[in-house]
């Protein structure tokens, strides 16, 4: 199977977040817990649903991840933009996001 991670928006501020190895949420996709089996993906989603029940996250879902470069990066363009921020208004991006932006095709 392809490698997967879980993303969601945080309830309070709406920001994009990725489920991390320690069960917390990070705004950096590189911190994502990468699932390498269907069972692990299912477990990640169940973990995310507990965050939904705890009023931490909203609408979690699995995304495909490419970690071949040593750092996790979404496969789909939509998810790349969610990870890096808008591509058309660079001035609004953080420095960290600009690094990600360079990788958006």
């Amino acid at each position, binding site marked *: 199977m392809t490698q997967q991670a879980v993303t969601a*928006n945080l*309830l*309070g*501020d*709406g*920001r*994009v977040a990725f489920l991390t190895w320690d069960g917390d949420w990070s705004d950096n996709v590189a911190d994502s817990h990468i699932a390498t089996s269907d069972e692990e993906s299912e477990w990640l989603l169940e973990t995310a649903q507990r965050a*939904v*029940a*705890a*009023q931490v996250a*909203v*609408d979690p879902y699995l995304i495909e991840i490419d970690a071949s470069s040593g750092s996790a990066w979404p496969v*789909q*363009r*939509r998810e790349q*933009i*969610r990870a890096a*921020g*808008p*591509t*058309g*208004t660079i001035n*609004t991006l953080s420095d960290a996001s600009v690094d990600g932006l360079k990788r958006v095709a």
Partner: protein
Amino acid sequence: MYRYDAYDSQLVGERVAQFRDQVQRRLDGALSEDEFRPLRLLNGLYLQLHAYMLRVAIPYGTLSSEQMRMLAHIARRYDKGYGHFTTRQNIQFNWTKLEEAPDILTDLAKVEMHAIQTSGNTIRNTTADPFAGVAADEIEDPRITCEIIRQWSTLHPEFSFLPRKFKIAVTGAYEDRAAVRVHDIGLAMQRNEAGEVGFEVMVGGGQGRTPMIAKTIRDFLPKDQLLSYLEAILRVYNLAGRRDNKYKARIKILVHELGTEVFRDQVEAEWEQLRDAGPNLDSAEVERIAAFFDPPSYEPAETSGYNAKLFEDHAFSDWARTNVARHKQSGYAIVSVSLKPEGEAPGDATAEQMDAMAEFAERYSLGEIRVTHEQNLVLPYVRQSDLYALWQGLRTQGLSTANIGLISDIIACPGLDYCGLATTRSIPVAQRISRLFANLDRQHDIGELRLKISGCINACGHHHVGHIGILGVDRKGEEYYQITLGGRADENAAIGKIIGPAFSSDNVVDAIETLVNIYLEQRYDGERFVDTYERIGQSPFKEALYDAR
């Protein structure tokens, strides 16, 4: 401008208090997301790609300087320092925090603004000619009608859960600057043979995946019977609209499936039941509302200084040619302020630019600003003698681009950079086209060319009615762009026709340049791009695009 009465203030104040409670219950876990989602959408709060997005209503696109300052404050205090003016004459803030949304609504209420009915299957903000009240070709100020519709439609219990969203646009002038023919209902003011004022009523226009031009179901509706007639239309739609299929739920599909004649007969039959007992306003109430839109006391204006500057300053003259329109009052001008500077996101304005516009409005335009569906701003009451000073001020704020109606005055939806529905990006394509045609002399030589870009089939970027339309389509993860030609949003509205296979993101901007070059080769004197296209047809453009491939 209209000012809230006690009912308006109470209604908005109570809604803010309700929403504050709803948000707190969501954060506390008393409301699930499924329970909360429809409540936040009723208050214009979406969850988009990156964050919550708050869409604030700007009734018929009219803003006071005080309101613009509040929008600047919200951009600065609660967002990332900018806002996005939309094709519905509204503004969107893209980085709203749920925790702060009630505070934003509280701040908006202080200046008589809100986000009610900017989402959901309701009657949305009624839009209008941005030159309302000052256009030289106007019968009456359409904002009086818009305000009456606003009061009638706000929280209307029968029309709060329609089959789909519902958009009304009104123009009081012959020249259609409000795109009324691509709205669910378009109202175009007319005079009948007796000299009475009423409306041509058009129904079933719209864009999206099934674009349609509205059909006229009444050539002349007396003004005083507008609300009962609107109620009859909405009632027919509410009962017969397709609730079984989201993609067939807009009124345009109902009108199309029934046929214009049958739909008209149903509306007229319903109206017969309503017209005498319906919600029509008495003349005193109309006069009360109309008084808010009385023309200002115009001062005798000096014009010689303006004319001299036109000769002296080439850049000012270029700006005046595209961005200054004729005012109904001698000595005054209507100024369009472009939110499309070279290489920037169409419709975006920073907090500093909003504050500056408030300042310019107070100094030069009786404190009033308009928002256009083409994502620009308008100062409607500028003395010609102030134009040069205003232009110099606009230059210091990056607001003096002389491109209104030209190829870089692009309508673009937020696209995949912000929108949860989009499948491709719009803004970067607009920015690349803007940069390619950055030379203003070249743009002025090309002349009027309405270019519109949508990042998905929902067509929020109005690509169907662009002289050149660009629709982004996703093909196996790659962004492609389909080009349409010949669309128009004006009084001769038309849906553009697809010219051929879509272009890759790398090639689409070159394709636009090819189209422009064919126009320049083929045009007759005085012809705009769309005129040449209508005269020579698609073939020359198509051959230039595809034969060499």
